[in-house]
């Protein structure tokens, strides 16, 4: 049984150009993906391929134009605000830019405390904050709690953000290019952290990226997206070794390969 599934999901943006002309931009074109419990899947594609639209549609920041979304095999496409709120307790999203996703006017503590308050956390909130900060390897927690986002590095911010999403205790985590804005040196740490979280907390993770190198490190299965369509799907290693679709081949060739000689 799949945890999250989309069925012919489409999203068309209407972009007004000039006064009368309007252009339809198909961001998602009959996308079918499936996420099973405790799975870490990747969605790969170049920028503009619709990856971020897919992520935002899955958390209802966008409404799909057509198609359905199933959560635990229940069709949730038509959910309204109250039910969406409930649904979002199960699914959280990590944004690409850790410099924009934390509120510059609030401390680290506030960022993690709010979700705890909102889910009406039963235990000691104070201890829970420390626990979460420890989990994302921000040690010692007391050192970070009263810091403002601008006092932290990009990697630290992304960890704080991860702690914020984990505070909601979701079943699914969507990570939309979580490391693309970070230094290469901290990327591995964050990715390992994702993997560790999946193993420890039994989360399902959708990892969205344009970077084939990182996707092969952590994911079990991948979907390759191009122009809003899924062009290839399957086991990560298989696809990277034997791509069948022309676009996937291009993508693999374009990725920097440390072993390939020019």
């Amino acid at each position, binding site marked *: 049984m799949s945890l999250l599934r989309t069925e012919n999901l489409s999203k068309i943006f209407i972009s007004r150009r000039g006064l009368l002309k309007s252009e339809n931009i198909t961001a998602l074109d009959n996308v079918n993906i499936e996420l099973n419990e405790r799975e870490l899947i990747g969605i790969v594609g170049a920028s503009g391929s619709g990856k971020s639209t897919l992520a935002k549609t899955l*958390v209802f*920041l966008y409404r799909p134009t057509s198609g359905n979304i199933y959560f635990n095999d229940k069709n949730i496409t038509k959910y309204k605000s109250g039910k969406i*709120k409930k649904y*979002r*307790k199960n699914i*959280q*999203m990590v*944004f690409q*830019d850790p410099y*924009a*996703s*934390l*509120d*510059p*006017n*609030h401390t680290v503590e506030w960022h993690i405390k*709010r*979700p705890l308050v*909102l*889910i009406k956390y039963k235990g*000691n909130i*104070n*201890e829970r904050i*420390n626990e979460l900060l420890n989990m994302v390897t921000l040690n010692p927690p*007391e050192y970070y709690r*009263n810091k403002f986002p601008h006092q932290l590095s990009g990697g630290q911010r992304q960890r704080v*953000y991860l702690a*914020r*999403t984990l*505070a*909601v205790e979701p079943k699914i985590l969507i990570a939309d290019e979580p490391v693309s804005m970070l230094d290469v040196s901290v990327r591995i740490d964050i990715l390992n952290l994702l993997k560790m979280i999946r193993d420890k907390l039994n989360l399902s993770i959708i990892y969205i990226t344009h970077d084939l190198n990182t996707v092969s490190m952590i994911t079990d299965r991948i979907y390759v997206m191009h122009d809003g369509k899924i062009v290839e799907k399957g086991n990560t290693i298989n696809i990277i070794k034997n791509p069948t679709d022309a676009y996937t081949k291009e993508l693999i060739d374009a990725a920097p390969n440390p072993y390939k000689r020019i």
Partner: protein
Amino acid sequence: MNHNLFKNRSINKIPFKFNKIIKPLKILLTNNKAKAGFIILTGMIIFGILGQFFTPYNPNKYEFAGSMPPSYAHILGTTVYGQDVFSQLFYGAAPTLLVGFSVGIIGTFISIFVGISAGFASERLNSIVTGIINIFLIIPGVLLIMLFGSYFLGIHESLGYLPTILILVITGWAFGARTFRSITLSIAKRDFILSSMLIGESRLSIMFRQIIRAIFPVIISNFFFTAMYGTMGLTFVEYLGVGNLLQINWGTMLYWAINNEAYLTGLWWWILPPSFMISILMFSFILLNFGMDEIGNPSLRRFNRKKNKKGDINEFTEN
């Protein structure tokens, strides 16, 4: 461990709260325009407070010879009615400031509420509220003041301070609402707001906890703009003669000076002091308005003067 933690936090809390008051002020003083405006305005406020207690003569009494030019006894001379101009100026500062500030505060509150909810609400509500904002922007405020004032005169009432503040708030809130609306529209798309929606914050909570804080410099800047409108509006109301002309403020002083044709009869000491006090007050509001704008909008901040002689490279400094 737990006990320790709690102690630690309570210690941390104290400087943090103190910071909350000091920090905005510090920010204010980093900008030269805002600093100048702040100094002038503080001076005005002190002038206004002192004026309630230490006027040299009773500003209401007609006890001197009329139309006396400035002298040691009357540093700004007397009016045609024999009132001491300086005492009136001194005493009238507080009500003038109070009207300006009240209009600023009430108007800003309304525009925060209307503007932010328009920018953050559903699309349909947004367009309706935007329409209402535009109506209030389009209608010339002076016309509405005239109409209201004349109706009040009709029922043998003049606009006292409260109705004046009310009408100025009605005609003056929309400018800020328009600003807040467009700023909120752009902030609502930022990731940190989306993130709060994802973790289940209500819109109201996001408005109060995050958006208002994010646009705080703009709110302050707008407060000074609305306060300026309020002060200017008070002088309009008084000039048109629909206000209560027995009250003493800089607006009524101008009304009496103008109605007695002080500018024709050479009583410059009667008409110029209130005019200049009003414009200095307005000037400080404008300085603070633009200073806060520059603080809120980093691209307007000063750039390092030490630029290349060729003028190509601008080094950005935080100032």
